[in-house]
């Protein structure tokens, strides 16, 4: 990483903003800025993980039983797809650092493709849940779990399921937009060994989105 950062020193001046002394300083600032943003993302999701922990502690049996209503096979396929997209994203960063123009475009395109497939599979899962009535608390309408006091506890699980996977899906959509922007710029030939900050920072964001899923998959699908 140090070698790469110092290679950024000779960046073409057209991408160095006036208020930075050196391209290296600009690279360091952008990188730190993105890491800080990722910290805020972790805390943003953190609220939902806390809600999950609270309700699972209160009603462990509801979570165990409800989790079996999720389609583990589709979840596992999605996990593999996202891991693959993380690989292509990391590869894209490497390509930009080495100046491999074609490899960069291919890797970014593959990443976007994988993200779209992920959303497609997620959509299939959502539509199954919709048809079976496995929805959030106020809309839950399935006879699978015991009904207590006018509402179904399984609804709480599905509220959390939809909140967490929904928020994650929104982040996937934002990721597609961000990678699309990087792809456009790389088609224009903006990136090379001297300047690859946007590929690098968008890559960091994408890895975080993957990482969140790596936690969501076992916590939601594999606890039954």
């Amino acid at each position, binding site marked *: 990483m140090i070698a790469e950062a110092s290679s950024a020193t000779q960046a073409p001046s057209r991408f160095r*903003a*006036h*208020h*930075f002394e050196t391209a290296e*300083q600009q690279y*360091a*600032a952008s990188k*730190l*800025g993105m890491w*800080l*943003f990722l*910290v*805020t*993302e972790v*805390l*943003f*999701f*953190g*609220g*939902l993980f*806390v*809600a999950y922990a*609270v*309700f699972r502690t209160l009603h462990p049996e509801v979570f165990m039983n409800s989790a079996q209503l999720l389609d583990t096979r589709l979840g596992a396929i999605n996990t593999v797809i996202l891991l693959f997209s993380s690989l292509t994203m990391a590869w894209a960063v490497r390509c930009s650092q080495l100046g491999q123009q074609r490899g960069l475009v291919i890797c970014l395109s593959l990443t976007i493709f994988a993200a779209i497939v992920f959303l497609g599979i997620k959509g299939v899962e959502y539509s199954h849940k919709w048809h079976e009535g496995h929805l*959030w*608390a*106020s*809309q839950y309408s399935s006879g699978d779990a015991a009904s207590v006091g006018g*509402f179904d*506890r399984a*609804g*709480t699980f599905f*509220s*959390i399921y*939809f*909140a967490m996977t929904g*928020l994650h899906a929104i982040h996937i959509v934002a990721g597609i937009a961000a990678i699309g922007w990087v792809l456009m710029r790389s088609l224009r030939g903006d990136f090379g060994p001297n300047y690859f900050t946007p590929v690098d920072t968008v890559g960091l964001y994408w890895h975080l989105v993957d990482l969140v899923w790596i936690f969501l998959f076992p916590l939601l699908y594999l606890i039954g």
Partner: protein
Amino acid sequence: MSTTTEPKHRLPQFISPRSTTEQPLSYLTAERGIRSWLFTLDHKRIGVMYLIGILTSFLMGGVMALLVRTELLTPGPTIMDADTYNHMFTLHGAIMTFLFIIPSIPAALGNFVLPLMIGAKDVAFPRMNLASLYLWVFGAVFLVAAMGLNGLDTGWTFYTPYSTTTNSSVISATMGVFILGFSSIFTGINFIATVHTMRPKGMTWFRMPLFLWSLYATAIIQVLATPVLGITLMLLIAERVAGIGIFDPALGGDPVLYQHFFWFYSHPAVYIMILPAMGIISELISTFSRTRIFGYRFLCYSSVAIALLGFLVWGHHMFTSESAMAAVIFSALTFSVSIPSGIKIFNWLATLYKGSISLTTPMCFALSFIVLFAFGGLTGLFLGALATDVHLHDTYFVVAHFHYVMMGGTLMAFIGGLFYWWPKMFGKMYNEFWGRMSCLGIFVGFNWTFFPQFLLGTKGMARRYYNYKPEFQGLHVVSTLGAFVLGVGLVICAAVLVHSLFRGRKAPPNPWGVATMEWETTSPPPVHNFEDTPKVTDPYDLEGFVLNETSGNYERRPAGITSSQKPSEVKA
């Protein structure tokens, strides 16, 4: 902006011609036209626009406060019905908290001063800085739009289950607060990245001015706490729209969970409000005592300590709804915050000791801050102690306590800082006599308004109530009269500042004799802040400056001369 402008020495409309004839192009005059402001990436212009926005919000919130106080002159209806009253105090709180106090010092003064203090041309991410301003504007529109829709009557805390059942415009308001949160996060990320990567060679962490330390500590809280508020409000909106049963007990949810989520942000948020204020006070006390700040390192560490401890005390807002064990732990942690706060107060007092104190307007505000903040902090201990809190919680004692800290603390420091940096921002000196008078008016009016509320609280007057027993009326009337005195003080303050823009003496580069870098450039600074890159020096080397009596400017003491000549007091 990249548009080329030939150097035309034209003046902005609000500065009178006689004082600016030989002025070099400043950031205010370099480019003209509304577009040059709306699309600027200059941190100084963004700071000035923030200043206008938050002062407008302050005016709005202040008028609401006066209406609330007027209503409370008599038990039962005075000037509005009970429902309007609920809307009024809610919007007063929400506007003052989210639109005024949180962005006040970091986004307005901090944006202007931070890059200047490290001798940089701008913050690390100027475009994100402008984005944060626009997010603030959008957030403000959503929040204020709630007023025009169905109003907002939940209290600024949006507690469930009421906020999920009331028919007032909770969604618009919380959406606004959500957007304002992103504005705050962007400012925080920008400041941390700037302080980390853009300090000049030679400015080590422990050679940074204390205002930077406090902005840095504030930024840490903004980045760590605000996202939690974001997700909380998203869940609240989902609860209202879709009924997800996370907070709504009718669907198996837990309203106390909402309180935990909310205060996990909102308690650290009170340190977002007070920490930058403490940073300003450190600068003011040192400058106007003309002595080196006492206990520099302790002041640095105490800022960071407050930022971190602030994350561990949210539970003291739920003393009556959590387990006894949790309450005891949160109570103990709450007391621990008083240690770094005490360190600050004692260091300021030690700085004053044997200092050559000049009672300029900023110094008057700084001294008021110390008195009022000490009051606010000490009464906080009554609320942090479990036994007394049972009696005092949700009474006017709490209202008085947080107004002493937020208004007597943050607002006093904000106005003090505004007077202090005003010459740098606009190149004009204000009228010192009337500046001091405004401080006196605000100080007297403030205590007049809020001290009686401590008494009301101990007698059992509950907060947020529209009606009250006749025996409380005397103190309510006193408090309301004080509120109008306070209002007059604030109007004088505004008049002094506006007057200076038109009639003020031209400000020299360094009117106070300070060694921090923002005073090395012209007042107001040029677009790129410094004509020559300034040298990093000791930020508290006040001895190194002597007053030039003719220009009113402090100049660096020529090498070799070590006279102990006392700087004469700054003239009005």
